[in-house]
């Protein structure tokens, strides 16, 4: 339980605060329309008025929030500052996309409530115009302002229309339809199936948010939700005058005909700040994209992986971070994230890119992947880099014993970590705190990540040369083993005493997972017995989940566990 609180506590707190603000805004604005000023409006609409205005306020709040988690450069800046105060808080910033999605779902929910309430409002307004009977307060109210067209209450001014036509002839209606349509298209193209398989559809459709925000700002300009003006409240007190509506404006009563006006639009006050921040974010990205990045080496790995070695002036990275890469010759608008596989100690940075989609295939061809002869340096395409982003996995250097578990393509941050630890240990001759690394790797077959298998082998070879073979202990679990294939071709395991490769079937995969979990539980039991502290973190780089369990088995012997999978 303590682990859970330490791990998830801050996230849950943030979510609760956000939900709390939503609930508060909903209730507050619901109640705000139950006052005197809106009495006559409520005569026409009942509580549907409040049911429409309350989600509108929540929508203002959520639309303000939704742009903030996607300003990744600004978040990086923010993260750099708070990392010194609290690493847990910094890690929260890695869950920006999860928060973005939560806010999006809330926007969709409130939009639905808002629309349903307004459907009732339109119907009631129409009813008031159609029941043309002077002994009905609703009709009398609807007739107000027919002359000057300014002090009216009912936005539907005639009975020779229907709600659909009214909707298409008011600013609020038109913008409402446009932004709801944009929202629906954005949501359907953001479904996981579409996003993972057809990224371009998701990315281009998502830019409909521009229409969404413009429409949102202009949505209230028609001021069609109208309440009694303060001046009118002096001359027509609804409590006293509502029942005597047939005598309004007559000399002997002190009830003048009420006058109504709409609220000025408020939404722009909520969203203008984040919109400006987002524009700044895009400008920063454009600026960064014009900074020169030189591809110094391109390596084609047989496993359909392209390794790009690049240099950029002033580029600094930490272990486990990722960058966005753009290649203007492939696509001017697309930026795709890739984990950095080089160590900070190297004077270049690399990314290993698997060729799986349109963009990666085009990049492969632009780098001359399909040609057999070596390419001239000047023929290589220009690229732009945005980043690096992501909470650095720097914690790995703070523990003596580290357990890394990677699955599939989630293993890429570990390339960076392993290289960095290696450099620290060997080349800089630093006294590295980390004494032992256990590395577990689950993958379908090593062919797909043959570059990483090569890295492990070369590390192993160097360790044996330096008589440090117990520094890194790695175990590879293959889940898609084919009997007919030779495993020795991809891994040289003959020289080592312990076999590193295991074949995993479904049952053995689960037994491995159970075994790993039981190792943690066992260690947890041990630490509970010993009464020592445990700390648990969750990290969230792009597309992977990783968790850190740091436990103290014995004082001075600390274990850190990283888990990264796709």
């Amino acid at each position: 339980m303590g682990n859970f609180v330490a791990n998830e506590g801050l996230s849950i707190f943030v979510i609760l605060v956000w939900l709390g603000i939503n609930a508060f805004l909903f209730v507050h604005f619901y109640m705000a329309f139950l006052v005197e000023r809106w009495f006559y409006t409520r005569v026409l609409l009942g509580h549907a008025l409040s049911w429409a205005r309350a989600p509108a306020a929540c929508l203002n709040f959520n639309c303000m929030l939704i742009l903030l988690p996607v300003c990744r450069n600004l978040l990086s800046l923010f993260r750099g500052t708070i990392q010194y105060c609290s690493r847990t808080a910094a890690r929260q910033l890695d869950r920006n996309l999860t928060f973005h999605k939560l806010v999006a779902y809330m926007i969709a929910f409130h939009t639905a409530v808002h629309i349903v309430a307004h459907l009732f409002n339109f119907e009631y307004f129409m009813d008031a115009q159609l029941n043309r009977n002077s002994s009905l307060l609703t009709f009398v109210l609807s007739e107000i302002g027919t002359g000057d067209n300014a002090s009216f209450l009912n936005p539907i001014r005639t009975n020779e229309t229907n709600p659909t036509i009214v909707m298409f002839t008011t600013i609020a209606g038109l913008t409402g339809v446009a932004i709801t349509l944009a929202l629906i298209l954005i949501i359907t193209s953001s479904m996981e199936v579409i996003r993972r398989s057809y990224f371009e559809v998701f990315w281009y459709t998502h830019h409909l948010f521009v229409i969404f925000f413009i429409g949102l700002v202009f949505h209230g300009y028609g001021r069609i939700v109208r309440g009694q003006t303060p001046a009118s409240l002096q001359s027509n007190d609804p409590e006293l005058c509502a029942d005597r509506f047939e005598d309004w404006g007559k000399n002997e009563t002190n009830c003048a005909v009420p006058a109504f006006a709409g609220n000025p639009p408020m939404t722009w006050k909520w969203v203008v700040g984040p919109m400006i921040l987002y524009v700044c974010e895009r400008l920063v990205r454009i600026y960064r994209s014009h900074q020169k990045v030189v591809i110094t080496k391109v390596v084609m790995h047989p496993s359909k992986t392209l390794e790009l070695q690049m240099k950029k002036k002033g580029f600094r990275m930490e272990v486990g971070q990722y960058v966005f890469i753009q290649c203007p010759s492939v696509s001017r608008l697309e930026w795709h994230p890739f984990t950095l596989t080089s160590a900070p100690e190297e004077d270049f940075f690399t990314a290993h890119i698997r060729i799986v989609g349109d963009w990666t295939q085009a990049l492969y061809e632009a780098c001359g992947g399909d040609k057999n002869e070596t390419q001239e340096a000047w023929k290589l395409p220009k690229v732009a880099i945005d980043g690096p982003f992501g909470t650095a996995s720097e914690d790995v250097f703070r523990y003596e014993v580290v357990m890394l578990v990677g699955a599939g393509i989630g293993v890429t941050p570990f390339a960076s970590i392993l290289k960095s630890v290696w450099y620290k240990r060997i080349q800089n001759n630093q006294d590295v705190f980390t004494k032992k690394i256990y590395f577990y790797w689950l993958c379908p077959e090593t062919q797909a990540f043959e570059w990483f298998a090569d890295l492990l082998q070369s590390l192993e070879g160097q360790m044996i040369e330096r008589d440090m073979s117990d520094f890194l202990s790695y175990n590879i679990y293959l889940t898609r083993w084919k009997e007919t294939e030779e495993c020795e071709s991809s891994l040289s395991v003959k020289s080592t005493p312990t076999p590193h490769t295991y074949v995993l079937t479904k049952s053995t995969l689960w037994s491995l997972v159970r075994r790993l979990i039981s190792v943690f539980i066992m260690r947890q039991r041990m630490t509970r017995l010993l009464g020592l502290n445990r700390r648990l973190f969750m990290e969230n780089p792009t597309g992977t989940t990783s968790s850190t369990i740091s436990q103290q088995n014995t004082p001075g012997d600390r274990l850190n566990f990283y888990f990264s999978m796709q």
Partner: protein
Amino acid sequence: MGKIEWAMWANEQALASGLILLTGGIVGVAGQFRGWQFAAYAVAAGVFVCLLEYPRSKRSKGTSVERPGQYCFTVCVKAFGPLTRNYYVRAFLHAAICVPGGFMLATVMGCVCLGIASLIYLAAAIRGEKWMPILPKVEVKAPVETMKNPPQNPPPRPPAEFRRKHVDDLEGAAYDNPMSVTADE
């Protein structure tokens, strides 16, 4: 955007439209709005569209992810053969279904969304995509091999480790007959 299967997005859009149409229809009927008959139609149309669009098609490239519990729907939709397989039919069907929704405010949103889904289906149909059911793979049992490869060596046969040729021992790798071979005289 060469590898996009538009039908996948059209399917998501149509399913969402079905739900929106259904919701608008329920509101129209429950609130007893004017023109509630259109709302009642929208309820029926929304349910129909949801049932039709719930089973995802099998992708021509890549792994297809089923929606939970879609197997029975797949079987029903498959039973209509070319009517459901062809996306031109679906495009025109959705275009036709969405029209009555435009006559009532509560269902206008569903109408517009379904119209857009119909356009995306048209794009999919023009590109030659088809709806293919995701069915569980029927395992074809290969005939059990009762006969393994006959032994390559004449008797006596030394055990396997000695038979395997070692690269560092080229002389030994050449076949060594334990018995001298003589031709039949």
